[in-house]
């Protein structure tokens, strides 16, 4: 008997909790409905494909059932981690990613600050449009522009020679050590305008009263930028930084693939190109998947570390 009572109380408390849940659900019905498609999207396109990770443990052959595949355990990972080339491309990936991160953030923030200070709307719009434009060019075209500009008879060499800064044309893309710099500059040229958009949006949300107060207190323009605009942008900057650190092993593919050549291969080849050559082109999808898993794990570690750091420093964060 005693037992039964206990059960009854339990189920009533469960019932009330359930009722509360249903109540909240019905209150937020619209919100739930609106988020449902995205939840479905995430499950179908992001979680179900995780099934494909099994490929990393197979000598995978296309167009065959799971049961017809040969399982080889960690062989693909062993190949990957025992390959000297792998560590070279890992270095290149991290360095290029780092350069893109630092340059990308730095230039976009500075440009956003400068644009914000512009008073002539017409000029501001023009600058913005011009700086956005390269973002919409495909990498194939952009790479061709860069190759042409950097050729021995290209505009860069011609200009440097006219200014007597160099005597012989420099084969820019033929000197491996220059590649990271060239890539960094190219990325900035292509994406700086685009990257400023979100910062400009963050700046508009800063209360104008703060500026007025600062002006009354006699703060100079630079001081206003430093003490009001930048702190106002900080939450956005931190959030973006966390998200970008999650992509630390994605240093891009097209730019390196298209601008890379035999002479700079030691600096230009990144993880994605390595996977393309030893994985995809040889039909070795197991290796490609193994590399993909490795990337995911590293990205997760970076993401969590950055998020914890932000938490500890009391900044806004992802979760």
């Amino acid at each position, binding site marked *: 008997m005693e037992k039964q009572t206990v059960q009854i109380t339990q189920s009533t408390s469960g019932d009330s909790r359930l009722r509360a849940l249903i109540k909240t659900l019905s209150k937020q019905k619209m919100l739930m409905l609106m988020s449902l498609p995205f939840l479905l999207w995430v499950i179908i396109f992001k979680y179900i494909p995780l099934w494909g990770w099994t490929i990393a443990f197979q000598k995978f052959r296309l167009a065959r059932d799971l049961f017809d595949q040969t399982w080889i355990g960690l062989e693909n990972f062993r190949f990957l981690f025992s390959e000297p080339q792998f560590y070279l491309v890992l270095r290149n990936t991290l360095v290029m990613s780092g350069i893109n991160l630092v340059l990308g953030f730095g230039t976009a923030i500075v440009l956003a600050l400068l644009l914000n200070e512009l008073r002539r709307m017409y000029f501001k719009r023009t600058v913005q449009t011009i700086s956005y434009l390269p973002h919409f060019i495909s990498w194939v075209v952009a790479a061709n522009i860069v190759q042409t500009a950097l050729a021995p008879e290209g505009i860069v060499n011609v200009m440097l020679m006219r200014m007597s800064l160099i005597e012989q044309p420099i084969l820019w893309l033929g000197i491996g050590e220059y590649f990271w710099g060239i890539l960094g500059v190219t990325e900035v040229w292509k994406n700086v305008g685009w990257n400023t958009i979100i910062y400009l949006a963050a700046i508009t949300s800063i209360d104008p009263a703060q500026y007025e107060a600062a002006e009354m207190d006699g703060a100079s323009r630079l001081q206003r930028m430093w003490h009001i605009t930048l702190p106002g942008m900080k939450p956005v900057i931190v959030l973006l930084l966390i998200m970008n650190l999650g992509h630390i092993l994605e240093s891009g593919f097209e730019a390196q693939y298209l601008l890379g*050549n035999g002479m700079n291969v030691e600096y230009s080849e990144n993880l994605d190109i390595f996977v393309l050559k030893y994985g995809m082109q040889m039909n070795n999808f197991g290796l490609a998947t193994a590399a993909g898993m490795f990337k995911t794990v590293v990205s997760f570690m970076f993401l969590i570390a950055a998020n914890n750091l932000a938490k500890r420093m009391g900044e806004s964060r992802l979760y």
Partner: protein
Amino acid sequence: MMRNKKWLRSSVAVMLAGTIVLAGCSNNESGGSNAETGGTNGEVSTDPVTFSYFSFGTNKDVLASETTIGKILQEQTGVDWQMEFVVGDANTKSGVMIAGGDYPDVINDVGQLPKLLDAGSLIPLNDLIEEYGPNIKRVYGEHFDKFTEDDGNIYILPFSANVNEYVTEPDIGGGAFWIQRRVLKEFGYPEVKTLDQYFDLIAQYEAKYPSIDGKDTIGFITSAGATGEFFSIANVPMHLAGYPNEGNVMVDMETHEAKLYAASDYEKQWLAALNEMSRKQLLDPETFTANKDQYLAKLTSGRVLGYFNYGWQVGDATNNLKAAGDDDLRYVALPIVFDESVRDAYIDPPSFVNNRGVGITVSAEDPARIVQYWDNLLTDENQKLLQWGEEGVTYSVNEDGRFVMTEEQIANRNDNEFKRTYGWAYFDMDWPKYGANSTFEDGNAYSPLSQPEVAAVNYTEGDKALLEAYGIETFSGLFAEPQERPWYPAWSIKKEQGSPEQIFNQRVGDLQVKFYPRLVFAQASDFDSIWNEYLAEFNKLDSAGYEAFVTAKVKDRVAGNW
């Protein structure tokens, strides 16, 4: 508790919904490909039908009946073709095609055969050929064993089954060292046999005429910087040593041993020569960096004195130069070797390439109809149509029964645009056909440019002067006759996907891409130490294993087991 269960139930429901959606998709697909098998009953039908043809080579997409040849063939058979060609990377495309099971009716494999066979994408043709292919048997009969797979089935029809008398091509379409004609003219058409003589001639000319139209001349280039064309520089040692294009090995004529030439003395000698040219500023500094467009632009500019390429790599540039009409700026192919005593082997020996061909996929709804179409292609009449066109329109027959062409007809036969509208660009290759060195039963050459009467009309005044200066009839006259190599070509030996041999090739390729530029642009004093570094890296790879693999396959072929 309840709440948890509810969650579980709803997530199960979502998963289920997801699976149903996915299952729905895959059902549709398999339904589509199941419907194919029916509907083949022995009769030759001429009902109009359009099949799809996909090639892993590059060309412009077309509907076959929009070309003259395609239209004539459609009238004969009722079959039309939606022809599509690969865009971007063929390896990636084939992977996507196989993974999705989304096949055209017919595939021209261009190097993707191992993958397609591995995935079971192609159907066996043996029974279909037996039933519908009298002409296929006539043309391919004696070669069947060369392209029968280990399981006893035939999956593709290759393009190189030569029939009747064997003729060699009068002009060089393969690999060679090319030199600008004004260079030869300047020095009174000297005989150029060795690499030293060749580079020396270029150096002398460059010293005399350092610029053209205000731009610096370029002594020597190759298209090593173009995507996927690194072989333009890496293959050269093999040719200089007197071997034909076997890929990455040289096969001894007597012992049939295959030797890699990467990291050999031959390679060292070649790179040292390039290094010397580079230090004399005669080698294009952009050798490893110019992309294909930049490269072809240089070739057509007339600034280049010499280059190494396979003819088909630079066809557009040479055609344009010919059309431009300045003979001095055109190029002529030379059979350059390391040493006077070496017999050159630039011209391909009679060969049967067994891993390039067209096959029918498992998605084809009416394979019998396709085999009938192919069989119809292989009649003497249609083979003439596919190479020569229509009598009285694109060629004529003289009183001796020989096929001849006027200058205009030849110009059309060579014109890229005309070839597209007429259909040669789509039909004179990459379908079941006679090999390029065939003759017809009436003695006329299969390929128009192999017909001496046509070659003679095709030559410009400048061509004729050059031929006369060297006392030869055709441009191949400078080259040695090819010798019998029954295993040729070694590059067509199949390597398993992801096999040690395939990975070995990739690794060697990676090493070469890395070290060639360093070696070529090195200071004279550093060359040897970089070379030793390269050797050390190379020796880490299992080259002996690779050579043993190729040697065994070559010996199999010599013994008649292809």
